[in-house]
């Protein structure tokens, strides 16, 4: 394995591939993802995108549910401040995210696993940078592995 090229061609076998859930606003980040597709901009395939009409539609329950169901990271993509299609949905997102981040921190979920980014419809390159960066940071953290899975609850407490 001294040849670095060999390492490059067989990385997938034991490398951790994080699962990132993306909540993308219909008017900006989702269109950026569209643009990335039509422009053949490549980014890490670890993100599963859910389209919402506004980043403000992202209920904190969605984020917690994603983590509880096995997501290693959650990315919310919204319009730049001042650009919200619904005037101020993204500001509401920002306020909730700041509070939710503190809850996640106390629950032992690292800050890098939860991210809010403003990505406009024209910023396919920025989308690529953000997703790739997040995937690498979460990969470095490793799997989230919440100890308590609903189906394991009875066994878990008998530890």
């Amino acid at each position, binding site marked *: 394995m001294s040849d670095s090229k060999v390492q490059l061609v067989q990385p997938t076998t034991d490398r951790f591939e994080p699962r990132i859930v993306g909540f993308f606003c219909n008017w900006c980040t989702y269109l950026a993802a569209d643009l990335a597709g039509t422009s053949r901009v490549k980014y890490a395939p670890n993100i599963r995108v859910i389209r919402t009409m506004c980043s403000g539609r992202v*209920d904190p*329950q969605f984020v917690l549910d994603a983590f509880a169901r096995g997501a290693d990271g959650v990315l919310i993509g919204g319009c730049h401040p001042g650009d919200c299609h619904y005037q101020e949905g993204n500001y509401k997102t920002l306020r909730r995210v*700041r*509070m939710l981040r503190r809850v996640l921190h106390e629950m032992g979920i690292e800050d890098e696993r939860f991210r809010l980014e403003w990505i406009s419809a024209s910023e396919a390159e920025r989308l690529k940078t953000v997703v790739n960066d997040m995937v690498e940071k979460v990969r470095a953290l490793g799997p989230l592995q919440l*100890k*308590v899975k609903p189906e394991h609850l009875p066994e878990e407490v008998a530890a």
Partner: protein
Amino acid sequence: MTEPAPVPKNEKPKVAFYWCASCGGCEETVLDLDERVLDVVAAVDIVFWPVALDFKRHDVEAMPDGSILAAFVNGAVRTSEQQEMAHLMRRKAKVLVALGSCAQLGGIPGLANLSTRQAVLESSYCESPSTVNPERMFPQTLHKENGFSVSLPELFDTVRSLDQVVDVDYYLPGCPPTPKILWDAVHVLLSGNLPPKGTVLAPDRALCHECPREGTRPEKLTLKEFKRPPHVVIDEETCLLAQGVVCLGPATRGGCEALCPQGNMPCTGCFGPTSRVRDYGAKALSAIASIIDSNDEKEIEQIAQTVPDPVGTFYRYSLPSSLLRRKKIEETVTSDK
């Protein structure tokens, strides 16, 4: 399930009460029925109630399965004994009712899910200021001496709500439930006209609708700072949120008739969520954070910091029943025991 014993015609329906990890406040609710408790006793036979009557566990075990009409169990489940009793009550009762926030959502004891069993024991048996324990003695589940052995229930790492242990038919919310809520529930159960399984026996609407301060709530409510009750002189008539106090009424189920706001204190959310909400704390957080009066990231963070303990504030009664259930445990910690 074994064949139910034939019931003599004029025998009264049987009711049982049990407490798990709780403070005893829910038992107070039964006593707070005042003289109405006599009506309850006239209508039913109380066959098990450790806090008040001298029936033992083996008395309940001797009863045929399903022979108790309703068992009211309060408290969260955090020891092996509570788990066994929850299963026993489930087996003996036709209808199992989770009484109070702890049984319904995990309650105050559920905040132990921010910690681990080991840390809880360390805190109680070593670190608390009134404790002297240089040998670091901890409770053991089994102790043998001179051929005799004594045992204690095991403390679990994770606190659970009752329905995470056994099947629950109905929920009575509150810390504690109000006597009215309990009285209405007893009536419903005795009427035989039972609501669908899983029903929370309280109104399915936000507390604000029954708060006498509702009329003073401004159309657009925004705040530059969240205040805590000891730090502010609270006006007795104005909406508490409008005064900057974190009141969780908008996210909390009604039914208590706004007891806390009427006592000039904010709602802390003991009645839990309405039926449309899965995770109470997330929804309460969403409601409160949205009214932060700023669009600037730094200022928003400053204002958010004026809620010093977000988990304790928004999940005060519901951490075990939240989507995350507990703080993430590091693998090294779980291998204690």
